[in-house]
């Protein structure tokens, strides 16, 4: 059966160049980076080179990059680390309803400790209103946590305005940049963001490794205490091969950013035009222009979520149809809910996300197959 992977926002395959550069760090170069002998020094050097690569990609200083296990960890650290370093004064955090769960859940957790959290609403495209943010700020607000770009609908938040407002009020601005890196140009020196998180496996690097930018002078209480690794941000022997792979993946994405984002953007436009033009009762979710290249979230009317999801899978198409909750049923995501996207048992929302290996043949196959599925579905309803 033909198989089409069109779920790159979920994860990506590791690129061969990345696999190759990681290879020696399993059995040949294996010293503990904290050891002072030559074995340790070799590993240490590899980590520092990777740190330099990530710092260069974000245009920040080496010492401002901290490696960890994934963006979920980074997001937890940003929120809890900042909150617990201000534990006595408690205080107020501003975030939004469309954040990833690795931001929302730590916020809910912090509420149990007496921190106050404002969840900003979004417009129909999933964007927050900078003026609403300004109004939500209080004297005790110490953190603004808003994502760079949304993983489900691709809408890019007005980060520059957000950063500016944060700076004006002298509030730390933390942004979850998982979906932004490798897809849009980033310059954190110019953009006054204080904490930025990213993950290896979304940019053709390995799973289980991530990195975060922490602006000099930010004070975060560590989540993992121990040997004081990573400038005491995170104890634990470093995932050397993963960090090496992440460094290479970041470099590749930086080098190819212009050509790649243009190619994927064109492919995405073609895909969207065919989907909306040829299939009746479809709607694109997310901002029409201010969006990530590659993320295409579509509502299909006239078919149930389960039916479309199963049919796509039976046709070998791997897209994301929302996540199954513990009971196994498919519910519309909190993001679409916050955007007040129309929903019923007879509407299916699918997130397609294109990436490095997506081709025109593939997206055409997806459109043709969906047409076929919907046609079939209509007939079966009329039986």
């Amino acid at each position, binding site marked *: 059966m033909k198989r089409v992977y069109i779920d790159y926002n979920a994860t990506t395959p590791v690129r061969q160049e990345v696999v190759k550069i990681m290879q020696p760090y399993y059995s040949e170069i294996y010293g503990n980076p904290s050891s002072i002998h030559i074995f340790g020094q070799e590993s240490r050097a590899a980590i520092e080179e990777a740190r330099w690569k990530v710092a260069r990609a974000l245009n920040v200083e080496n010492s401002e990059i901290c490696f960890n296990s994934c963006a979920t960890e980074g997001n937890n650290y940003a929120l809890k680390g900042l909150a617990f370093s201000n534990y006595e004064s408690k205080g107020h955090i501003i975030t939004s309803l469309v954040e990833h769960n690795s931001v929302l859940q730590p916020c809910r957790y912090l509420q149990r400790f007496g921190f106050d959290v404002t969840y900003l609403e979004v417009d129909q495209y999933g964007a927050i209103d900078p003026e609403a943010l300004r109004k939500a700020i209080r004297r005790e607000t110490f953190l603004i946590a808003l994502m760079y770009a949304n993983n489900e609908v691709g809408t890019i938040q007005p980060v520059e305005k957000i950063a500016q407002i944060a700076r004006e009020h002298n509030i730390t601005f933390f942004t979850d940049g998982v979906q932004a890196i490798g897809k849009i140009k980033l310059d954190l020196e110019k953009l006054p963001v204080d904490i930025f998180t990213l993950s290896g496996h979304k940019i053709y690097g390995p799973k289980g490794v991530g990195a975060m930018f922490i602006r000099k002078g930010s004070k975060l209480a560590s989540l993992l205490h121990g040997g004081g690794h990573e400038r005491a941000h995170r104890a634990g022997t470093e995932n050397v091969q993963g960090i090496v792979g992440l460094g290479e993946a970041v470099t590749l994405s930086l080098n190819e950013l212009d050509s790649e984002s243009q190619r994927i953007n064109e492919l995405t436009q073609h895909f969207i035009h065919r989907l909306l033009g040829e299939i009746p009762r479809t709607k694109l979710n997310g901002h029409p222009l201010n969006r990530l290249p590659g993320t295409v979230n579509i509502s299909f009317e006239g078919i149930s979520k389960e039916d479309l999801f*199963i*049919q796509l899978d039976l046709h070998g198409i791997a897209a994301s149809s929302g996540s199954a909750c513990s009971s196994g049923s498919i519910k519309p995501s909190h993001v679409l809910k916050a955007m007040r996207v129309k929903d019923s048992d007879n509407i299916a929302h699918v997130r397609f996300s294109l990436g490095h290996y997506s081709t025109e043949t593939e997206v055409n196959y997806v459109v043709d197959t969906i047409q076929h599925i919907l046609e079939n579905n209509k007939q079966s309803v009329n*039986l």
Partner: protein
Amino acid sequence: MPSKRVIVGLSGGVDSAVAAALLQKEGYEIIGISLIMGSANLTGIKDNNQYSSPESLQLARSVAEKLNFPYYTYDCSEPFRREVIQPFIRAYRRATTPNPCLLCNPYFKWKALLSAAKKHNAFWVATGHYSRVIYDSQSQLFQLWRGRDPQKDQSYFLYRLNQKQLQHTIFPVGRYKKRDIIQLALKLNIPQSAAKESQDLCFLPDTSLKAFLKQELPPSLFKNGYILDTNGKILGQHEGLLNYTIGQRKGLGVSMGQPFYVISLNQKENTVIIGPESELYRKEFIIDKCSWISGEPPLSQFDCQVKIRYKHDAAPARLEPQGNSTCKIIFESPQKAITPGQSAVCYKDQILLGGGFIVPYSDY
């Protein structure tokens, strides 16, 4: 030639798993489906329905992984509530004793599985029931047969299926004995649930029926009333009709010289009638809302064997049609605890003909 694609309803249990394995061996293309049914418990846990608890779904999924076929779940908690749980509650409102499986199969499970089959271009649906569908070329009708294992036969639960449903149905395990299925499961290394095989009410896994009904039904149904003997003599007080079922012996709170049983419930008078075991036996009763496998109700009386609940050995009887969908059944010899709300199902030896719901005696 119909397609060889089949939707197999997986419960996480061993029977449906082996059903899938058997069909796969015969060259069918399997799509495994579990229906999320929801539960009605009072603990606030959302879905711990016996057949769609996270553990059951995990078991079903591991069967699909083992046999390497696609597996999906459908959230059907709303239809399940509408078609199964609500009628169940309504039956208690009439002081009868329902059997929810009898409604679940035709009006919920087959509806959902056949709709999935249509959607996914499958001609067939299959489950792990111990029963058989056999096409009779003479009458050009599909017949429902008992499962080959008399101990395990589950055809009773399927008596309300119709021709349209049977036409698409395969019961792969119905041709086997339960112990052969267990052997097959072991041979195929199919993971088996540690939980007990089945329980009475899948949607009330950890709530007592009494507590559930108390929540769902008006307090008037729990009003105290008199306990009478069959001559109308007051023997004591009861604590609401819903606390009693026919044949019940314990908890009557009256002491006679011999064991007394609940003989019948009279909702109009709010009385519980009790008596010695001998009075539990009846020869005649009425069934209504009958359903016939052939789709055609019988026009004249005939002899058959009748089963009055799942665990009852079908006994010889004569069935007399009485108007539209009502029949009178007369057993050759009296049977114990014929309970209103339960179904009486008629067989001609191995073949299930149809049946209906036992009508409360006070409605005669």
